């Protein structure tokens, strides 16, 4: 885009150059200065409004320059050297003559210092923009445990991780992605426990990416996956620094994207959907129980409508007679067949959910009132739907919310199983489940089988998967590194 490779020697030419590059952009600020005593010491400061800290700019750059007193000793030293070594009170300084680099730094919040007669610019690290404070993460609340969540600032996020893993073993690698957005992306891992093969593969995939704009880590999450045709995520994301610290200590790699409060972790295994950091902080009975509830919840979320339809329309003999009669009575004079009723109600629930997520808070009340009417007693009284169906949809809805991150997978699986069981009853449901098992067993996340240890009943394999065994019950180190060793074993 630029046919100009470097700067001009004259300040005015340079100012004109920047005006040409950013025509009509009034946030580019030029501040010419002239030293009051030394006539030849003149130049210009260029920065972008809003990206720099004005306090640093005026108090630590401009003032020292204008207050500088020359003496006998400093007379022969060039001004640029003086500036770099003594005058400017900012720690991050760099001299550059490459216009592309200069522009990148300027857009990244640095201040440029140009001197009359010099074809180089001094890049001064004055970054200072508004960002959200560290708050409790909105998507992953916890009762016990740390309440800090990631923010949109990459540096803040890195500090949140580093404060938890204070070891020189923690390695951080930067790279830049997005041809237009120049987004900073950062890999973060513990060198002694990371699997070099996975690291290599991840770096390869990131380097291979050709992407114009990288706005959020969600884009990256989809682009570095192994297999693209699945509703199950094979790259994890989290908003909790303590979860990321735990995962990188287990040998995983965290990928941070500037501007996104969601940090990716790879490899991501199926079981991690169900591991919540709070499990590790609360009583182990309670933690294990909650984890079992999550497994059960996920099972119910995908199965309840399918099993209900199968039982009511195909396999009535498996239900106790009294229950069957009461369901038949409730279904009396309901217009739609059970299957259609189930599909319609589930769709209505999904519509309400989506409406509730997007709606402005001021009119949120309306959704709950309407929702209660459509999915509630009023609909049953009007004989539009049957009462058991309302219960089924209610159970499905609430259990889906147990594992919010699995939403995409839950919804698609549920509709698939429902279609199959409406076609062949419980047998169709069983075929669906077997197909699902095959699909999951065939998935890989960065070469690691997605369902690693699922299906195994060995003690070491279920210690931190099916249950959360007590910390004292295992040798402290082996407990958390089980996953690490297993991952290493299969990627060797």
């Amino acid at each position, binding site marked *: 885009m630029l046919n100009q490779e470097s700067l001009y020697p004259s300040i005015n030419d340079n100012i004109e150059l920047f005006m040409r590059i950013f025509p009509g952009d009034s946030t580019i600020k030029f501040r010419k200065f002239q030293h009051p005593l030394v006539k030849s010491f003149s130049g210009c400061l260029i920065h972008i409004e809003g990206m720099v800290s004005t306090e640093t700019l005026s108090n630590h750059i401009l003032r020292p320059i204008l207050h500088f007193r020359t003496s006998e000793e400093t007379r022969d030293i060039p001004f640029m050297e003086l500036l770099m070594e003594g005058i400017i009170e900012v720690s991050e300084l760099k001299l550059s003559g490459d216009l592309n680099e200069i522009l990148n730094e300027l857009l990244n919040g640095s201040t440029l210092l140009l001197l009359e007669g010099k074809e180089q610019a001094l890049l001064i690290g004055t970054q200072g923009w508004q960002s959200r404070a560290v708050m409790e993460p909105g998507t992953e609340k916890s009762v016990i445990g740390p309440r800090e969540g990631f923010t949109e600032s990459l540096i803040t996020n890195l500090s949140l991780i580093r404060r938890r893993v204070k070891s020189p073993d923690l390695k951080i690698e930067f790279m830049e992605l997005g041809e237009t957005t120049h987004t900073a992306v950062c890999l973060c891992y513990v060198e002694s426990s990371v699997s070099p093969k996975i690291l290599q593969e991840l770096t390869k995939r990131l380097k291979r990416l050709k992407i114009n704009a990288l706005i959020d880590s969600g884009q990256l999450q989809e682009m570095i996956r192994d297999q693209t045709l699945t509703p199950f995520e094979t790259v994890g994301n989290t908003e909790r620094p303590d979860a990321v610290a735990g995962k990188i200590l287990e040998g995983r790699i965290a990928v941070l994207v500037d501007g996104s409060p969601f940090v990716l972790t790879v490899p991501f295994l199926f079981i991690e959907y169900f591991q919540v950091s709070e499990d590790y902080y609360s009583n182990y009975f309670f933690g294990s129980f909650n984890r079992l509830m999550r497994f059960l919840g996920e099972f119910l979320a995908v199965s309840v409508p399918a099993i209900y339809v199968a039982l009511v329309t195909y*396999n009535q*003999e*498996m239900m*106790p*007679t009294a229950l069957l009669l009461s369901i038949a009575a409730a279904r009396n004079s309901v217009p739609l067949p059970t299957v259609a009723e189930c599909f319609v109600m589930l769709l209505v629930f999904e519509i309400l959910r989506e409406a509730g997520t997007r709606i402005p808070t001021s009119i949120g009340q309306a959704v709950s009132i309407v929702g209660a009417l459509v999915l509630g007693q009023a609909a049953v009284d009007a004989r539009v739907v049957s009462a058991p169906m309302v219960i089924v949809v209610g159970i499905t809805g609430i259990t889906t919310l147990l594992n919010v991150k699995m939403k995409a997978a839950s919804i698609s699986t549920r509709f698939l199983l429902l279609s199959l069981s409406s076609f*062949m*009853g*419980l*047998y*169709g449901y*069983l*075929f669906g489940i*077997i*197909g699902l*098992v*095959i699909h999951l*067993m*065939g998935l890989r996340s960065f*070469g690691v*089988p997605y*369902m690693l240890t*699922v*299906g*195994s*009943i060995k003690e070491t394999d279920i210690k931190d998967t099916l249950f959360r065994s007590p910390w004292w019950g295992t040798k402290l180190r082996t407990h958390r590194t089980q996953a690490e060793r297993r991952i290493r074993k299969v990627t060797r």
Partner: protein
Amino acid sequence: MSKERITAGEARTIMILFIMGSTMIMGAGGQAHTDAWLAILMATGMSVPIVLISARLLALYPGQNLYDICLQVFGKLAGRVCILLYVWYAIHLAALVLRNYGEFMESEAMPETPMLVPMLFVAALCIFVVLHGIETLGRSARLMFNVCMITIIVVLSLTLERMDFENILPVLDYGWGPIWKGAFSAFSFPFAETFLLTAIFGGVKDGKSYVRILLYGLLIGSGLVLFITFRNLFILGNYTMSNVYFPSYAAVGRVNVGDFIQRIEGTVAIVFVICVFTKISACLLAASYGIAKLFGLHSYRTVVIQTGLLVTYLAYSLYDNIMEMLHFASEVYFFYAFPFQVIIPILLLIGAEIKVRRGNRANAG
């Protein structure tokens, strides 16, 4: 990953589910009536040598499967004929098992649905898993085996009150004749069929323990078959058991706990479907490997769908009715399968031992 490999545990699980296969539906050694358990024990004993042959072959040619060994031992032409025979056997076996399942669905579970529909579903699942490869099959088998075990244990605890342990008496009521007949039938029907697994177990990790994998698989599998036979005998008694086509289904249908848990034979179908699915997948995998070997294909995956559909059509047109199926299974199958299960394996073993010895001597000399 260049070569697909499964662990020893996964191989063992596939073997167990393979043995349980359609035996869960049909029962084994039915000719022996009350003494079916004795027949199963004898059949297990008889199949130990077959399993040992299989393990020895795999150990002699590490990393190679049945088809590679055939080529090495019998040479190019005879080796190919041998491969062709085993491909046919694998396809036919898969079709037989699929047909068993289809008959079960038509006569017990879904009488009004055409038999082809449930068969197509199972075949589609098998094609799906075989396309994923043996690793996925192994891992899925591992998980589904646990589901099977849980189901069996739960059903056992529910059926305990219906059991009458006197049903086992009188032992040896009909003399040894029917028992031998039942034993040979059980030998050929689930147990010796496991020789076909040699075709897919070429790439087991830590392959030194083939004897352990296969022998344990055989013993656990036959233990489970034995256990199911006892359960059915105790619940149904001799008379009913010889009069139903699918004893397990009938046995579990008798469960009634407080009028709330009743008619749960649908849950037994979980075990049926899982076992049948694993067995057909293993056969389909073996057949596809063989076809790929026969025609020198780069990947067996290109022929999986065709072979799978072929199996389905074959299964659909195998018999006219369920009586024909039972007749074939109990009267004909033993003689039909004898070459595949006993004669060729023995020839292979002798040939392989000679070849390897000669090779060693040549190397030493």
